[in-house]
């Protein structure tokens, strides 16, 4: 959408932007290969990936080919503080998990059990560790953790009982929207009404669609304000709904923001000879995003605003 809009305005210095889409097939190895393929095609920059484990597969190829890559959502600490062509729009897991810990502790939560998916382990384990550190620092405790494999034979139900058994005041679910919805279904099916907290990765409309009543009351952090009335955002949201019939999720917003940063940097690097795209990004930030100013520290790590929401009657409601 961002590219269509930009091209409609005449492109960058008269040059049209071409979008090449490659599927990482949810495999870090494939993703690394795709980077080399794109490099061979002469792309100037990559927007993506959305998942930390994929980013882990891509990073060596990114460093090798020096293709500037802007991930809208990747937040794993693994990528934080590295001087490479890999930029992250999102806050790090430490920042987010820290916010979760503080939020739950403030609501009186002290004992938390956690289930984490092993599909994107790089992210989930790191996230959980950061949460644990922050939560314990506040005086809380992670009383049980259980990994689960969405593709495994055991199903999700296997993790439910052990996590409930230690008498927690909340269950922390660290996985994507689909898995979070399904594991939430299993908690409710088991008859438990325990407070569910979902890591920000699951903060999509799918969570509600697939989770149904099971995800009612789930607390989750969103990196944007669903109810924002900032014109840039509302305009984007309306166009998005017109085109895709759904509301834009956090990854759509972050992707759009990433494209904004990239276009501004491309414009600068075309205008200024000898300025690499990476240097151009540092030169143009802060760039105005849909809801916030977009900027990076010297390692290319960004930060997003944080909004805690709760699912109520099939929709996210701000706390």
């Amino acid at each position: 959408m961002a590219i269509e809009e930009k091209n409609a305005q005449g492109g960058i210095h008269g040059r049209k932007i071409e979008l090449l889409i490659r599927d990482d097939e949810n495999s870090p190895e494939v993703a690394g290969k795709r980077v080399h393929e794109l490099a061979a095609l002469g792309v100037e920059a990559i927007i993506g990936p959305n998942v930390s484990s994929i980013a882990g597969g891509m990073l060596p190829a990114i460093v090798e080919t020096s293709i500037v890559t802007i991930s809208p959502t990747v937040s794993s600490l693994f990528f934080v503080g590295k001087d490479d062509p890999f930029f992250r729009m999102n806050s790090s897991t430490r920042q987010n998990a820290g916010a979760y810990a503080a939020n739950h502790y403030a609501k009186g939560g002290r004992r938390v059990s956690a289930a984490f998916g092993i599909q994107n382990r790089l992210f989930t384990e790191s996230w959980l560790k950061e949460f644990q550190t922050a939560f314990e620092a506040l005086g809380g405790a992670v009383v049980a953790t259980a990994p689960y494999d969405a593709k495994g034979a055991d199903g999700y139900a296997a993790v439910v009982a052990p996590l409930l058994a230690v008498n927690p005041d909340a269950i922390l679910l660290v996985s994507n929207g689909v898995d979070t919805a399904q594991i939430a279904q299993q908690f409710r099916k088991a008859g438990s009404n325990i407070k569910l907290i979902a890591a920000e990765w699951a903060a999509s409309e799918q969570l509600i669609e697939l989770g149904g009543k099971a995800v009612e009351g789930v607390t989750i952090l969103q990196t944007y304000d669903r109810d924002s009335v900032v014109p840039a955002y509302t305009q984007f949201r309306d166009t998005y709904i017109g085109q895709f019939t759904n509301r834009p999720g956090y990854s759509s917003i972050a992707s759009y923001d990433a494209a904004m940063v990239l276009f501004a940097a491309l414009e600068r690097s075309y205008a200024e000879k000898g300025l690499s795209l990476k240097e151009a990004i540092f030169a143009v930030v802060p760039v105005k995003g849909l809801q916030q100013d977009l900027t990076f520290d010297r390692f290319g790590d960004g930060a997003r605003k944080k909004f805690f929401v709760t699912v109520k009657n099939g929709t996210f409601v701000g706390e």
Partner: protein
Amino acid sequence: MIFRRERRLRTSLIFLLASTTLVTLAIVGTGILVVRLPQIVTANQTLVDRAAEETASRIEVFLKGLEERVALVAQTAYDVPDARVGSMLDAARGDAFEALYLVNKVGTVVAISVGNVSAKRSREMVGIDLSNSKLVRAVAEKKNVVWSDKFLSAVTGIVTIGVAIPIERFGGVVIAELPLATLLKISHIARGAEGLEFWIIDGHGEVVADTGLPSASGFNLRNNPVVKAGLAQNPVAERMTFKSREYQSAASFSRALGWLFVSRIPAGLENRRIRETVGLILIAFIASPLIGLILAPFWARGMTEALAPVIQRARMIASGAPPGAWPRGNVVEFNQLTSDLEAMSKSLQQRQLELRDLNEGLEARVEQRTQDLAIANDELTETLSTLNRAQGELVHSEKMAALGRLVAGVAHELNTPIGIGRMAVSTMRDAVFQLEKRMKTGLRKSDLTNTIEHLLSGSDMAEKNMIRAADLISSFKQVAVDRTTSNRRRFQLLEIVDEIILTLTPIIKQKSIRVDREIPKDIILESYPGDLGQVLTNLIDNAIKHGFDKRDNGVIRISAAPLSKNVIRLTISDDGHGMTKGVIDKIFDPFFTTKRGCGGTGLGMHVTYNAVVSILGGAITVSSTPDEGSVFQIDLPLIGPNRNIA
């Protein structure tokens, strides 16, 4: 001039073959392209139109079949004992569906059959809440069969499509989920032509299946003009651009599914048939001249080999050798050429014989003519020597004539002193007679005194005139000697000029012509005074005869001045009629005269020229303007050249 480059026959033939093939191919190729390309485009359009329809109906039929299967489950699900529902679902799912499940009216899964998951996982799905599922909601709303758009399955967690059929009696829903790959497979079957690709697009514009780019499914094509028009059930454009490539496209909308089937085939050179047609023509265009180039030398060699003996015989004729038997080949024109050459050769031989005869006769005639010419030449040589002799004689007689004139002049000059002398002598004789008479009658003293007086004056006068005559003779004698002997001696130029003027006095006085001379006394030459005199006489004579012709007066000017240490310039000019250029050019030629028939011999000036150049060793030039006069300039060395007198 047009420069024509010579080429061998072989080269010409190769060029001919290659260019003919190329031109033919260019014309035929263009024709084929003009006719064939639109045909291909039309055929392609028909193909994509039909393909869209066919795929739509094929998939519709296929999905209808599946739908009926699910409908059967929906009708019977509540009639089957609970324990057997699971196995019934498993049987109904078969390989066709990824998941088949029953959802009750509050949105809870009550029975499920899922492929590719563990039994445990399958079991735990029973009881989950799907009240927010779009498909469940859509059925609840429509109370009719709903084919979903692409959606994320709540049970399998993958993107899928599904059909939901309401269970009327109990208000539940049977949902069957279909792997996207199934649609792709069916679409692939319908592909047929190379390059023909399909999109199956759901109501949101999401690509459900793409036979062209399997990894790119997930595209949203709502903004593609063809998709936009197709989803709105409007006629779609036959052309579209997708990812910078041109396609011919068609779309068919399935009302039952709410999906759009778009078929596309690359347009232009991207299209295989067009590319092949163009490629074939290009290959023919490149290959034909190449084949021509390979074959042409053989063909050309055949031609040149047929021509070679003919050329060889033509050469033999040219070099005069007998050509021998003439070859015959299988090319009509070559045989004609051979026949013509043979005839030509025979006629040449005939001519040659005739020429030889003619030549022999010619030699005899040339000899005869040579002899005649030799005789004529001898005669001419003799005539010429006679003429030379005659010319010499004429020159001599001219000189004699001049001498004659000189004598006449001398005689005329002598006449006066001698006449006066005679008269003085006769006066004296008369005085003596008177004295004798007186002596008879009585002589008086006065008579004697008178007689003495008379005698004294008479003798004085006689003596003076005799001396004068003697001087004249002596000077004329010198002139005559000079003229006849031609000896080199020292002389004063002024003296010679005066003598010549003197000798010419009779003719000068005849016309009261004035002769002015301006010659320094100190010019002394050691040369040939006779010849110089001759030159002066001729020039003055010429001036009087021609320059003052029919005129009674005029001025002749003679001047001299040193030109250098050893050379003087003598100038004789007149103010007479002058001469035309034609006359000046020929003036020194022998026998040239403007007074032929009036006594002119035409040798005077020739003699003058010879005398100046050959004897005096000088040079003479003439310039003249008609009606203004003529000027002769004679440059003379002070010392004349030696003459070897044989």
